[in-house]
């Protein structure tokens, strides 16, 4: 008993920075609840305070982890029984999520979205949920964190209270609930088969292997359904375009990277201990995601919807490294996610900055904007090229590493399926040029409807976008730093 108590105390101490999220969440909620409806100016002050508190708490987590708790995650430490598993990989993914969340908050401020105070509380909880997801190897904890993320996402999607929002939100909710149900069913099956909730242990692998393969495969497939829903991979993708079109852009930008990163980490951990061959299902999911995402995007006229389909395709690419089932594959997946972070945030920021002028996300409205502000024109070229995956951007490096890993895996295993996926990926990259390039094409080569009127964007907005552009180019020139960092992570 005493031993258990001391373990709980130890665990809480290690997780102190994460608990801070809970405190901040409560403080924010209290602050909003007990403050009256304030006049505009003071509300503004309140929001600033909230932003700052959120930023500080996220920053504190990292300060604490890097400074004080290094010894606990060097070799990975198991906390709260087996509910929490903390190691350097989870820390790296927390870093990605934090960068995304900080960037999104700055995005909200820079573009000037009017949000109510509750937004920050919900956002806080969402980030917290994601953090927990990055450090769990337990089915139950995974399910809880996933639901935490999902529920917060449902709320954020309908925050604008518009008609479209409600429609998108209700679909998102129904779809999410269904996926969640499937996942829970899958988990129960797996628990029945293996008798353990911890999915990285030796126990899990051994017991799972004793079952008929196809039953195990179906159970695992059902289980990862909930994860695929977060990843918006086929066949759990249908909600994506609607939600992306209706939701405020910063939230979309966040949904397009942070939950996906966390989910991919869970998948990495799951596959590393999976004792059954799961590659065929993965191959089908990847090919379907890439193809459906890219081909649907071809005909879109709304930039946000187009980027929605594009994220489906990118979800497919993220899984390619897992299909390779070797260390290089996993590393290149992490690299791909880390770089996709900058690309996707930049892309959504760009269309938001464009929308400031045009007040519309339609492709047609972008005519000649690149002539009116050459900086935005160039930024569009760089970002879209990065999304396609061409040099001189980091998008190219990421795809190159993924396909190299896949090719090596094909060389060693000789499985034709991998070759087919490789060819599919390359072909789809070629196809994706057509719709990505449409944005800079409209901006630069089409004449504006009513003459060229020069359009200035503010220094802070420009500077914020420049940071992303810098990383997109810099990581192409000097990827070694990031690659070394990823190689130093101890993959379970």
């Amino acid at each position, binding site marked *: 008993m005493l031993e258990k108590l001391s373990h709980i105390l130890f665990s809480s101490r290690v997780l102190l920075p994460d608990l801070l999220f809970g405190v901040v969440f409560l403080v924010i909620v209290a602050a909003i609840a007990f403050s009256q409806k304030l006049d505009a100016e003071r509300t503004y002050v309140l929001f600033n305070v909230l932003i700052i508190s959120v930023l500080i708490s996220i920053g504190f987590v990292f300060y604490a982890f890097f400074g004080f708790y290094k010894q606990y995650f060097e070799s990975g430490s198991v906390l709260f029984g087996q509910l929490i598993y903390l190691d350097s990989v989870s820390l790296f993914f927390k870093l990605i999520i934090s960068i995304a969340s900080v960037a999104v908050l700055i995005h909200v401020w820079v573009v000037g979205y009017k949000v109510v105070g509750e937004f920050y509380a919900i956002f806080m909880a969402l980030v917290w949920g994601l953090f927990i997801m990055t450090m769990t190897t337990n089915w139950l904890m995974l399910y809880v964190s996933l639901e935490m993320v999902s529920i917060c996402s449902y709320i954020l999607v309908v925050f604008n209270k518009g008609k479209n929002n409600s429609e998108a939100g*209700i*679909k998102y909710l*129904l*779809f999410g609930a*269904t*996926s969640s149900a*499937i996942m829970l069913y899958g988990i129960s099956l797996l628990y029945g088969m293996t008798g353990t909730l911890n999915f990285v242990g030796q126990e899990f692998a051994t017991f799972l292997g004793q079952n008929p393969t*196809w039953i195990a*495969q*179906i159970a695992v*497939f*059902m289980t990862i*359904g909930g994860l695929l829903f977060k990843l918006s991979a086929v*066949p*759990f993708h*249908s909600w994506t375009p*609607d939600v992306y079109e209706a939701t405020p852009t910063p939230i979309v930008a966040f949904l397009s990277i942070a939950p996906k990163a966390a989910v991919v980490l869970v998948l990495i951990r799951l596959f590393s201990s999976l004792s059954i061959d799961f590659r*065929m*299902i993965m191959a*089908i999911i990847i090919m379907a995601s890439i*193809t*459906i995402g890219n*081909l*649907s995007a*071809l*005909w879109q006229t709304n930039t946000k919807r187009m980027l929605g389909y594009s994220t489906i395709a990118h979800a497919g690419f993220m899984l390619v490294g897992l299909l390779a089932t070797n260390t290089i594959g996993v590393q290149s997946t992490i690299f791909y996610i880390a770089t996709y972070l900058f690309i996707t945030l930049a892309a959504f920021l760009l269309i938001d900055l464009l929308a400031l002028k045009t007040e519309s996300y339609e492709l047609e409205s972008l005519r000649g904007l690149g002539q009116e502000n050459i900086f935005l024109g160039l930024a569009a070229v760089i970002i879209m090229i990065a999304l396609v995956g061409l040099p001189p951007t980091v998008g190219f490096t990421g795809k190159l590493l993924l396909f190299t890993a896949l090719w090596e895996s094909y060389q060693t295993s000789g499985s034709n399926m991998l070759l087919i996926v490789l060819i599919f990926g390359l072909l789809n990259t070629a*196809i994706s040029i057509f719709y990505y390039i449409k944005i800079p094409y409209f901006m630069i080569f089409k004449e504006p409807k009513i003459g060229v009127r020069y359009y200035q964007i503010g220094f802070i907005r420009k500077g914020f976008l420049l940071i992303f552009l810098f990383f997109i180019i810099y990581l192409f020139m000097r990827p070694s730093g990031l690659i070394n960092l990823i190689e130093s992570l101890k993959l379970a």
Partner: protein
Amino acid sequence: MSAELVILINILFYLFGFSFLLYKRNQLSEQSIGLLSILINFIGVLFSMGIRLSDISGDVISYNWFYISDKLFTIDILLNDLTYLMYFLVQFIALWVQVFSLKYMQGDPSFGRYYAYLNLFILAMIGIVISGNLLMIFMFWELVGLCSYLLVGFWYEKKSATNAAMKAFLVNRIGDIGFFIGILLVYRYFGTLDVTTIVNKAQVMSAASLNSPIITTIGLLLFCGCVAKSAQLPLQVWLPDAMEGPTPVSALIHAATMVAAGIFLMARIEPILSPNTLLVMAVVGMLTMFFGACSALVQYDIKKLLAFSTISQLGLMVVGIGVGAVNTALFHLVTHAFFKAGLFLSAGAVIHHMHHEQDMRKMGNLRREIPIIYYTYTICAAALAGIPFFSGFLSKDAIVVAAFEWASRQPKQAYFIIPAVCLVVSGMSAYYMMRQVFLVFLEREDNPLELISSSAKSLYKNVAKRIEGIVNVEDDEERQQAEIRHAEEGDLLDFLSDIGPMELSSIVMAIASIGFVFALNPFSAESSWFFHTFHHEATSYQWVAYIAILVALNGVLLGYIFTKEESYRLDNEELEPRGMIAKFIFKNYYLSELYQTIFVKPLLWISPKINLFDRKIIDGAVNSVGSLTIAWASLNYWVERSIIDSFVGLVANTTAKIGSYTRQIQNGKAQTYIITIFVCLVLMMILLIIK
């Protein structure tokens, strides 16, 4: 503070001065511009004096700059006595030139731009002085060239100024090509561009390898840079034209500092010059010196005369290096910098006084009007003429002695022609300086006939006055007495109150041209502080000094007599002197015209033809390749459209159909939407079971 830090801060100051003045050139008042610029320069002078005290000598400070594969290129700062000397000299003269310009450039609409360029120039010149490798020297070399271009063409509204600027720039390019090839050869041969390393390697070389053709070639190519920048014989045409720039600029750039950069460069790399190169340099220097002096004899333009004299003196310095007496050449560089700057500044004051009239025939009698300038000018001219007690005598004498010594070591008697020409040129310089002083400052006597008539007139006037005076005696006498009294009291006060910025600068330069500044014994250059620092071995040839004094005094005398005679028949309207030879010399041997005919005209003739060739044939070829590509591309396009696109279209249309199907679901039927998942799930199960 370490020396390199001081230099770095100093350079940053000038950079700041340049950019700030250029940026604010239209906002700031003239006073604040001048004050700021002079302040920066003054700090620079203080710094340069402070450095000497810190006493780190012969140091090379290297910073890594960049790699080309594994070849490291460095930024080197070479600190030795030569560096300190030039570092101080450049800034000191620049300071007084800036002070001078306050008055001279007053009211010029581009006052700020002028000072900004001056700052850039000082920066570049310091850069040359401190650079420890040839690549850096070359870069700053080009930068001073640019400043020269900008300042010669400063009054760009004048066509002649822009032409002169262009000429200076292009002629310098020719020399720089040689210089650059020389640098590349140095890198090829020595494997480094670091001056100290090169010099050390050259010093341990055997005589045979130093005489090898490659070393000679390198030396000659590097000398090319000196030929263009220091206006040596075939390329000296740009310097007289460069007088189109403002006079203080001529004093700073085209007399004291930039044109001496060639000499400085040669002094830096002297150990790698082979005996053959040195001989070539001596000969080139001799010819330049002689022809420059000849041209100076017949000029009417006050500044052009000084320009030709500069060419001649630079030739003398090159001779000094050519005969192996580097330090005498440097000594002459220093003394020349002061007295030539003083001459140019005084000339500037004269031009200012004459309201931008530069023709000496229209001057005269200025001794009375601007006495201070008269004295400063005479002192500087005496220094240039080589009169004892003035600085020029010391340095010229040292070079001539060194040349005699050198000639006596040579196998043939013919080599004595070089010291002989030095002496002759020394006499010529005394002649033309006397001529200039006479024409500008002294009272000019008129033709004897006119003299008689005018004296008759004045006699008549005096007589008339007397008669008038007798009528009212008292008034007149009183007034006269008052005038006399006033004149006695006010002389010194008037004299002092005349001193403005221009006079002050001229006075400083004149003081620096007096022999005692350099050596306590005004007859012996060996005793000067300069040769204590820069060691120079010389056996003393007393008789050379006496001959030199004799020649100089003779030159002055002849100059006085001939100019007096010449002044009777001066024709103000005439553009060129009469007589074939005089015209030939006056026109600088028609070198410019020669280059125009040989190089420029054929170029102008052939370039339209080449243009035509380019347009018709090369462009035609390119265009036909282009049309072929277009044809091929349209074929490709057709293939793409009809075959590939239809395939893509098929695929895409299929997807679009699926897309429209899902869209239909999204239009309100969320349940179908969820059913899709279950269908997929079931399909997956079936797939797995059959497999």
